């Protein structure tokens, strides 16, 4: 007979508890700091791309979601320090399972994952993200490639002294892990 009140009791007591419902999409709660969200192709502090087009991410990908084609940096058109850059870069988010093996494989820490998770669309084509969409935004002090190496005479300067150079840069960490 008390079961009746017991049942309503549960409902009544919930009214005084904190609600767990997320008010998405009006409210946009951040994901956990290490959430495997959308990828980002990072830049050196001067705006040159970190990606060297090595395809190790594509090789590591268990879902075959990544397509990369390398390109040759020339003196006239330089996109990254060193000889090689990623001329074409595509991630197919219909295939990506968010495992993060690609960012583990990346030798230059060019590819990282942000915690942006709004990856839905009404057609397949738009879910293949291209290099322009994946590249990190230009922060202050960065310059849109192609341009010559500003932080040293060769790629060694970028890699070996990278952290030091980054600290000297205006906005220190170009890896904007929190995207809103």
């Amino acid at each position, binding site marked *: 007979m008390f079961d009746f009140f017991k049942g309503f009791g549960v409902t009544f007591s919930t009214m005084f508890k904190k609600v767990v419902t997320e008010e998405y999409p009006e409210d946009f709660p951040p994901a956990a700091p290490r959430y495997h969200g959308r990828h980002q192709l990072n830049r050196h502090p001067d705006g040159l791309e970190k990606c060297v087009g090595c395809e190790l991410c594509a090789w590591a990908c268990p879902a075959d979601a990544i397509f990369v084609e390398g390109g040759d940096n020339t003196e006239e058109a330089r996109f990254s320090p*060193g000889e090689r850059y990623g001329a074409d870069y595509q991630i197919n988010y219909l295939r990506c399972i968010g495992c993060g093996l690609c960012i583990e494989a990346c030798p230059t820490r060019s590819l990282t994952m942000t915690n942006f998770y709004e990856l839905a669309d009404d057609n397949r084509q738009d879910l293949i993200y291209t290099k322009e969409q994946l590249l990190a935004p230009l922060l202050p002090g960065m310059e849109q490639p192609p341009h010559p190496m500003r932080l040293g005479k060769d790629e060694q300067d970028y890699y070996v002294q990278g952290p030091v150079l980054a600290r000297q840069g205006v906005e220190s960490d170009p890896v904007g892990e929190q995207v809103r």
Partner: protein
Amino acid sequence: MTTTETETVTLTIDGIEVTAPKGEILIRTCERLGIIVPRFCDHPLLEPAGACRQCLVEVEMGGRPMPKPQASCTMTVADGMVVKTQHTSPVADKAQQGVMELLLINHPLDCPICDKGGECPLQNQAMSTGRTDSRFVETKRTFPKPLPISSQVLLDRERCVLCQRCTRFSDEIAGDPFIDLLERGANQQIGTAEDKPFQSYFSGNTIQICPVGALTSAAYRFRSRPFDLKSTPSVCEHCSSGCASRTDTRRGQVMRKLAGNDPEVNEEWLCDKGRFAFRYLGAKQRITRPLLRDESGQLVEVSWTEALRVAAEGLLAARGNRGIGVLAGGRLTREDAYAYAKFARVAAGTHDVDFRARPHSAEELAFLQTQLTPTVTFAAVEAAPSVLTVGMDLEEESGILFLRVRKAVRKHGQRVFTLGQWSTPGVEKTHATLIKSVPGAEASVLRELSVGGELVDALSATGSVILVGDRAAEVPGLHSAVAELATRTGAQVAWVPRRAGDRGALEVGAVPTLLPGGRPVTDAAARAEVERAWGVTLSAEPGRSTDEILAAAASGALSGLVVGGVDPHDLADPAAALAGLANVGFLVSLEIMTSAVTELADVVLPVAPDAHRAGTYVNWEGRHRPFAPSLDGGGVLPDCRVLDTLAVEMDVDLFTQTPSAAAGDLDRLGPYTGTFTAPTERPGSTPRPAQVGSAVLATWRQLLDDGALQVDEPALAGTARAPRVRANAATAERLGLTEGGQASVATDRGAITLPVELADLPDGVVWLPAHSPGSQVRSTLGVGHGALVRVTAG
């Protein structure tokens, strides 16, 4: 010789007793046992070097262990030897790990940006036999990179492990020792002389055999990784050697070609044309949709149905009028050539079909009939005690055959004779005896030498070979002189055409005098066999040759032409050929690219290039070289399918819908069993003595030139030999030419102006490359080999 070959020794490797032929090197014996010893410098086709020291093993001789581990790539097997590899010997294992650590000391961590990454012997063997970390923490030695050593080979000296495979290849195999070791100690590096880039026709092979990423290809730079590539075994389409190659494609595009391993044909080598010339597949000149000429005279894209209907109506009208001629071209597979041969006989009702898209003669056809069952192979050429080349420059016109001859010269001192005009690099690298002749007088020179002397003595040795190029057709009487010399000396004769499809087209009857299998048109019994198989009645009268067909078209004696891959500028008289193509009533062109023929054609039907078709090339040995398509789709069909459908529109059936159907139809006919007699033509008139200001022209093509299949290849073109006018010092002086200065070679039609280079030509002779940039001999001058030209300075 046979006794040494069968002599064997018995030794023990990793506890396994094994019998090996005497003289075999240890690493090869291990390989046969399935024991893989890591190595970099060892290559089965190069001399042992012992340069990298990676293959160290422990060796015990007569119960006494050798004090230090030994390099198994330089040590030959011996009786009673006890060998322990890294699998059983901690000493060998430690030695190999130590060598790997040393090799990696200065090796940069370039794998992510290195083209070799993923297919790198150093990467793989560092994983299998290296340590996980290095004790070397100091700064690595660096060099500026990449260093272009030619327009198509890039050198990265940091990555080099100094195995010397590239330098040994260039020195031993290609004979172009333009790269070598420089400096000493830690600064030792591969390099070229400052003024001499790595201009070799075979430089691409060094990229393929480099065990690290030190030599990379400019054309393939950063294009893909091995795991992206779909590899298909293929056959090279560029010359009549039929080299085995591997075509690597990514997303519907050919990325690169590599040499296949076929010990009987190309061993593991490929010339640079075969390796790098494939961008024509995606050239802007490519045709992939049928084109029809509209009322305004423009070619417009139409549907296959409409194009085939119009083509069939036009051809039927032409057949009813004064007839159709068929020009097949020299780049066809056996199956496609058969479709042309059958189309001519069954649909066009004529023997007017010819594959020869180059200067030709009736004498040549008579000679070719004796060449229907070839007996000479690459192996026979290699084993021959002496070789005579007639009407061909080995290096320029058959690169892989040149490597074989050079190998024979190096290995057993083969004697090479070249009937030519000057000591070309190919002549020098084969240490050939040059038999000099004024252009056009080759036949008389050969006849004089046939009487007796050094050449006859050398060629009389059993197994000697005479190699005849297709340029021999430009000299009247030369084929007869060759036949006579062969009869006198007992040497075997091999016809080595320049184009990949020539021999196949000959065998399947794409010539005016022969039916498939070499059946003569004039032989009633042979003709009856074909008539039974095809269900048609064939004329007993042989047809016309390419030149005669085009002349007939020009004069209105033919109403229609079906033309395959023919470039009128390759023919003896391009102007006359173009007149024929322009004046013929109805012209159907089957092409892969726009050409002088498609510009004049009423209907253009696109056909499939090699990457999109299956088929079989017949190489100069007569060896069948089947290949499958390396790219799917492409929306293009092979010639045999297009001709079959066109014939169906004309109400006849060819049964060549697919290459395999065509091959089946052809094979049911079988070969002809009769024999032919060799031509006995007298040499032509002796060349005219050069008048003041004139000279006799010698000319042939260079390997890398303005060929139709070499479009869009700037890196490849960069290693082509510079076009030059060549003459000897006396002639140059008489004509007022100076070395390095310009010379103008002219006829009434036009002039070619190029820098002069002195060479050992006969007096009164100048040489020009036949089809190089700035030197289109046939189309500019309207004449060819053996013609009289005016030469002036400037």
